[in-house]
């Protein structure tokens, strides 16, 4: 009995040692991969930050109004945000490779799926960013044009443009990462269609005078409009 227990313990000890002997090199490899990944991610971040500084992305972002939104959300500058995103995406990739090296049962499949998702997430972030910049730029252009031309409700026009572009960008980003693809497309079609129908009905029924005024301003006698104000030059 005593011998059996000693034998069992010995075998368990041997198994443990074998397992450690088997696991330890993989752990070391994983740590090496993580450290190398950290270095690669850092280098990529530095390179991207330098390139973006040279191309003056922050200035573009400031001009387009995207920086204001970032500041409101307590986020760093656009250059910093993109270079940090690249750092984390790259390092996360290396960490996932490292974890897959450990060979933990059940994790392999999840890691492969995550791997496939990483580029899509990066593209989705980019789509959202471009959507934000475009929406801000076009809505501000519409607001200024409407205010300077003396159109009624310029903010409504501006926010409508912003809303449509945001809705488009968000649905594109969600479709990119594959989240409830069918639902997103259906929801976007319904929201967009309803919005346009609402505008058409509102403008057609409630704003006949406005429509006439709009058409007269733009297609009517422009000379009359110009002479409302003294000749500037």
């Amino acid at each position, binding site marked *: 009995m005593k011998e059996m227990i000693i034998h069992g313990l010995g075998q368990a000890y041997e198994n443990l040692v074998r397992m450690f002997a088997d696991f330890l090199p993989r752990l070391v490899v994983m740590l090496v991969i993580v450290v190398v990944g950290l270095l690669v991610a850092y280098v990529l971040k530095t390179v991207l930050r330098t390139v973006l500084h040279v191309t003056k992305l922050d200035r573009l972002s*400031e*001009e387009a*109004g995207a920086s204001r939104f970032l500041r409101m959300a307590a986020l760093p500058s656009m250059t910093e945000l993109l270079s940090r995103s690249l750092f984390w995406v790259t390092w996360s990739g290396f960490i996932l490779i490292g974890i897959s090296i450990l060979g933990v049962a059940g994790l392999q499949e999840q890691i492969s799926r995550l791997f496939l998702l990483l580029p899509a997430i990066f593209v989705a972030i980019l789509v959202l960013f471009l959507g934000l910049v475009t929406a801000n730029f076009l809505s*501000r252009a519409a607001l*200024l044009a409407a205010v300077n*031309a003396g159109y009624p409700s310029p903010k409504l026009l501006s926010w409508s443009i912003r809303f449509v572009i945001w809705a488009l960008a968000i649905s594109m980003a969600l479709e990119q990462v594959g989240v409830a693809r069918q639902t997103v497309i259906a929801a976007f079609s319904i929201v967009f269609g309803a919005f346009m129908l609402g505008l058409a009905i509102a403008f057609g029924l409630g704003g006949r005078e406005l429509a006439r005024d709009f058409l007269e301003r733009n297609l009517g006698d422009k000379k009359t409009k110009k002479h409302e104000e003294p000749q*500037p030059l």
Partner: protein
Amino acid sequence: MAEEILLQDDFLRQLMSVGEVDLLVAIPSYNHAATINETLQAIEESLHQNFVRERAVILNVDGGSSDATRQMFLDTSERRNAGLKSLTSLRTIHRISCEYDRSPSQGMALRSVVAAADLLRARSCAVVSPGTASLTPSWVANLLRPVYREQFDFVAPLYARSRFQGLLARDLLYPMSRAIFGRSIREVYSDEWGFCGRLASQCLEQEVWHEEAVRARPGAWMAITAMCRDFKCCQYFLGPKTAAVPGTSADIVEAIRQTVGNLFWCMEANQAQWLNRTGSQAVPTFGPDHELSADGIPGAQEKIFDLFRSGVNELHPILASILAEDTHAQVKAIALLDPGKFRFSIELWVRTLYEFAASYHRAALNRDHLVQALVPLYRGRLYSFLLEHAASSAEAMEVESEILCQEFERQKPYLVARWNSKSEVKP
């Protein structure tokens, strides 16, 4: 240098066949078939009467007219040759027409003109607009003569104005450009001006022709270049200016986008030259330095005030990102005033403009948007001006204009301080 510019072969051939000239008069055109005849006649008469021994060329640069403007230019010139035999010119006056592009661009037109001036080694050049109905032979002579005979490098025109005409130029462009660049040239943004060949060559060498500000208002850019590089500038009083087709001038939004956008861009491009300049120098003036007639009535003032008030309300976040907190608060406060008691003081107006310029410099937002955001505030200032001067005499308005100029100069250190604090970013 001119050969390196993409001049069309046919244009280059015509220029080379002319050889060197003393005088060059350019007519940028686009669908001006109805008026180019009169413009050409005035130029020819001027050259025949005033520059008898000089070699001269009249250059038409066209932006792809669809109404046979170029054909009119060439046909007219042939007819005139026959009609001017009795005049005293001893030399042939050459005429060249070229199409610089299929779409009009003042910048591209001027680029062709200065390239031609450089190639022909023209000593004195003038640009005149076929859209100006009041152009006379004396105008052309007065733009060419100071450069050709008095060794000036740049000649700006001076026009007789009615009291409420050209208020953007009198309330913003002239006093601000005078305070910034240190030369008191009244009509920087004009369609007629004269310049020397040396200035043309220097302008041609600059890599700025693709810039929107230069493309929109190349004449003003040339004037500011002359002021900043200490070329000898002068002004010549030409008389009243009337458009050939009334109502064709740019509306207030477009005028501000073109002129103020150009002024801010020129400030940015020439900051090394003006940041340390103080005060302003009067430039030699031929004839009276201003002439305001008492005629003219202000337009629809209530509408102007409404546009100012709604603009200040609707553009609140945009103005907050451009103006200092205190200035923005003052603008919002005056927007609440009763229209009858409204006043946009010159101190506030100058500070507002300087803050816009500094925000343009640090690109607080898209630069075209920033310039457009100025339109409602200009309307406020315009309404205040019309209210204040509805019954003023021309002399009183001129005194007020001088006070405004001095206020711009007084506050210039404030502009320089804001300009240099480029890193300032609004929370």
